Structure formats: structure tokens, C-alpha cells
């Protein structure tokens, strides 16, 4: 009988949703965030706060906010204050304020009706629910660029204004906005922008040494002793550094390398396992990104990937991408979506960092959007999408 043995002792410590007890190299930023929201446990209801967390992919924005949320709600609980921290990813909500507020409300009333109300009505309802329960809320809006791109300034303006309209009532709603590119703030109106920019926490890219330390901590938590050598760890940290100090990418590499070691029945994660892992994981094609796309977003992206697989160009025009998409729809027996819908997909995929877009200039007749695929080989993206579609039961 073959005895199954694994290099892992607890692979959940490498999960994308794992929030470590102590954040390495982010202590100062965590303290700063705690200071901004100190009033929430000392004088709740007296004021409201907005903070902005900025940083590249994998610099710890999400985990910083979540660790802060866990810490502050624990302290509030000890002081018998009904303080809630709700973390919402705007991209997962397709950049819609309606879905964001709906998901927030459902943390309080899980069976709240899903349809029949506007975003503004839901926002009012949220405030009434908070009043009804004597609750305070810190709402963290992750990947905020998706909301700004989809709905512009209005949602943040409304979220800020809702407090100002309630002069005599306790202040119940505070915001943490998390985004990658500060350029997106330029899409906001000046007053909303200035209120957001009051408290900024910038997260610098991790250095190679910092990544090594982070990985070392995770290795101790997730792997059996002696299964990951220093050499392997340094190799992953170096790769993480080339991806702008992306800790999330490095941790995923570590996990995948461990999986390759298990699959090869090795007792140790070797550099070859890491090389295999590198070939299978690209930072933008993370395991949580592609499956979350809607069916037609996946089909559109598949069309784009196929274009780049067959053509040696840097960009594809919107028109050409639509043609490729029609062919993919035909293959999967799906009715094509209209141009406006596809245009929305392009904006969303661009906000998610999967594709790049630019407006055509000299040398191209008329004006069209050009789509680029800078971060992942088309052939791998195509394969990944086909696999996901097949797992979802979509066959050609």
C-alpha cells in the first residue's frame, strides 16, 4: 500500500484569504490606520473617517485592512461597542454600488430582498439598519478603481454625503478605500477627491529581503520541517522581486511549488518544482481572478487570447476583438452580447489588470480602443480559460 505523505502540514496558511496574526513590514502602516480610526472605539458616533490605502499588486493592501478590521472589532467587542468591519471587493461586485451596498446589508440581514430598490434607497436602508441596531460600520472598499471606472464620482460622493445629511444623528459609517493606481482618483470630483486624500497610507513594494522573511514565516506555518530549503526560498523571493515585490504572487508560487513536490512524490520542494510553478502561474491569472468573470467576459477574453496566439501584434482593435468573440460564441453555442456590453467588459477587464487599453492614434482610421495583453502569454491564458469553461460544464 502506498503511504501518502505531503510536504504541507497546513496549506491553508498559504491561502489567499489567510490573514496572519502579525504583518511583517507593515507594522507602522497598521499603527497609522489604527490611529486614524481610534475614535471608533474611544468616542463612537462622534465622527466619521475616510482613509485611503495605495500600493501595487501584492504589497499587502487587503491583508493590512483585514488585519486592522479584525483587531479593531475585537477591541470594540471588549468595550461592548457594536462596531462592524465589512470588506467588499468592488471588482467582485462588478463595480456596482448597488451590489456593494446589498452585500454590506446582507452582513446584517442575510435575507434582505435582492431586487426592487435603487442603490440610493439601499444606502438609506443601510443607515437605518445601523441606527436600529446601534451599530457602527467601517466599510472597506477594495479594488476601488472598479467602482470609479464603472460609476464615476457619484458612489463615493453619496457615501460621504449620507453622513453629512444626518447632523443630529450619531456618525455611523466610515470608509477605507483601497486601490492600486492613484490615477483613478482623478476621475473623481475635486471635493470627493480631497476628502479621500486626507489620510493616505502608501505601501511600498516589498524588497527581496522582506519577501524572503515573509516567505520564511509562511514556510514555518504551512510546511513540514526541512521540506523547503533556503535556496528554494531565495529563488521564490527573487522571482517575487521581479514582479515588483508581489508577495501574493510569491506565496502562490510557494504553494504551487509544494503541490508539484507532492505530485512528484518528493520529500522536499526543489528548485525544479519552483520552475514548474512559475510556468503555471502568472500574477494576473491568479486562481481567484479568472473564475470570477462572467461567462461572456471569459468568452470575450478567450477571443482576445486567440487573436494574440495567431497574430504577432501588440494590440488588437475593439472591432477585431469583437469578431474573435463572435467566433468563440459560435463555438460555445452562445448568443453574442452587443457592442456596449462588450465595451463594459473591456473596461472591467482593464480595471482588473488583465488587459491594457489605449485609444488608437495616428496611423489608424477613425478612433477605436486598442486592447493589449501585456502580462500573460496568450497561449497560457487561452488554456486556462478553456479549462475553466470546461470545469463549468461549457463545452464546444
Amino acid at each position, binding site marked *: 500500500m502506498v503511504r501518502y505523505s505531503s510536504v504541507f502540514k497546513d496549506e491553508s496558511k498559504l491561502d489567499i484569504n489567510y490573514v496572519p496574526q502579525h504583518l511583517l513590514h507593515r507594522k507602522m502602516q497598521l499603527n497609522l490606520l489604527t490611529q486614524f480610526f481610534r475614535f471608533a472605539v474611544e468616542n463612537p458616533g462622534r465622527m466619521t473617517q475616510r482613509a485611503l490605502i495605495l500600493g501595487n499588486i501584492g504589497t499587502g493592501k487587503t491583508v493590512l485592512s483585514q488585519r486592522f478590521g479584525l483587531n479593531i472589532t475585537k477591541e470594540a467587542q471588549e468595550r461592548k461597542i457594536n462596531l462592524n468591519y465589512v470588506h467588499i471587493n468592488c471588482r467582485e461586485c462588478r463595480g456596482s454600488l448597488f451590489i456593494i451596498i446589498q452585500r454590506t446589508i446582507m452582513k446584517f440581514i442575510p435575507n434582505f430582498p435582492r431586487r426592487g*430598490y435603487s442603490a440610493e434607497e*439601499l444606502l438609506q436602508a443601510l443607515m*437605518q439598519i445601523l441606527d*436600529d441596531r446601534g451599530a457602527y460600520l467601517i466599510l472597506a472598499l477594495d479594488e476601488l478603481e472598479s467602482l470609479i471606472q464603472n460609476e464615476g464620482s457619484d458612489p463615493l460622493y453619496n457615501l460621504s454625503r449620507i453622513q453629512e445629511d444626518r447632523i443630529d444623528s450619531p456618525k455611523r459609517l466610515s470608509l477605507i478605500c483601497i486601490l492600486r493606481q492613484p490615477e483613478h482618483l482623478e476621475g473623481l470630483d475635486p471635493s470627493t477627491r480631497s476628502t479621500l486624500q486626507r489620510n493616505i497610507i502608501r505601501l511600498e513594494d516589498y524588497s527581496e529581503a522582506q519577501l524572503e522573511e515573509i516567505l520564511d514565516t509562511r514556510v514555518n506555518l504551512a510546511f513540514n520541517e526541512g521540506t523547503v530549503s533556503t535556496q528554494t526560498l531565495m529563488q521564490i523571493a527573487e522571482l517575487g522581486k521581479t514582479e515588483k515585490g508581489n508577495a501574493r504572487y510569491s506565496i502562490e508560487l510557494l504553494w504551487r511549488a509544494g503541490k508539484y513536490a507532492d505530485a512528484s512524490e518528493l520529500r522536499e520542494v526543489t528548485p525544479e518544482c519552483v520552475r514548474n510553478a512559475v510556468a503555471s502561474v502568472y500574477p494576473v491569472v491568479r486562481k481567484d481572478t479568472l473564475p470570477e468573470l462572467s461567462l461572456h467576459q471569459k468568452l470575450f477574453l478567450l477571443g482576445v487570447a486567440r487573436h494574440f496566439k495567431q497574430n504577432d501584434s501588440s494590440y488588437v482593435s475593439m472591432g477585431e476583438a469583437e469578431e474573435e468573440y463572435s467566433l468563440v460564441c459560435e463555438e460555445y453555442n452562445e448568443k453574442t452580447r452587443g457592442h456596449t456590453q462588450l465595451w463594459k467588459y473591456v473596461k472591467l477587464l482593464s480595471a482588473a489588470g488583465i488587459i491594457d487599453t489605449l485609444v488608437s492614434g495616428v496611423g489608424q482610421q477613425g478612433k477605436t480602443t486598442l486592447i493589449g495583453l501585456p502580462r500573460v502569454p496568450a497561449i497560457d491564458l487561452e488554456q486556462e480559460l478553456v479549462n475553466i469553461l470546461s470545469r463549468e460544464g461549457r463545452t464546444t
Partner: protein
Amino acid sequence: MAIEEVFSSKGRVKILRILSEIGELNISEIARRAGLNYATTNQHLILLEKHKLIRHKTFGRIRIFRYNEENPRAILIRQLIENWE
């Protein structure tokens, strides 16, 4: 309200059971889960609320009904439902 008034209606018992299990729901969802139409559900809810077995809160246009955890009779009915099942 006499006890037979509560238990003589299948609809009212269904609503009490649903709310005691779920806690909070809006009227359309109660009607859907109980297999009743909106108007009938509304009538039952008015009666049950009149006798303090349930309560409601209005959030904008949205009415959310909840089981009245503080009413001794409601507590007894919940116990009965739990023991019955």
C-alpha cells in the same frame, strides 16, 4: 387572541415556523417560503403582529419582519416548534 386562533390557520403556523427559524425576512420572501399569496401573507402578519408574536421594522420602502424574541408566548411557540420537529 385565543390559542385556537393562532393554530387554526395553517398559513399563520407556517409563517411563525419560518420566522422562528430564519429570524428576519421581508414580506415577499415570507410569502414565497410559505407558499401563500402576498395579500394573505400580509393579513396573517398584521394579526400576528397585533398579538405581539412578531414585529417589523421599516427600512425605506422595505419592511422586515422578525420573530418577537421578547414575548413569552412567542418563546413558548418557538419551543413547541423546535420540539415538534
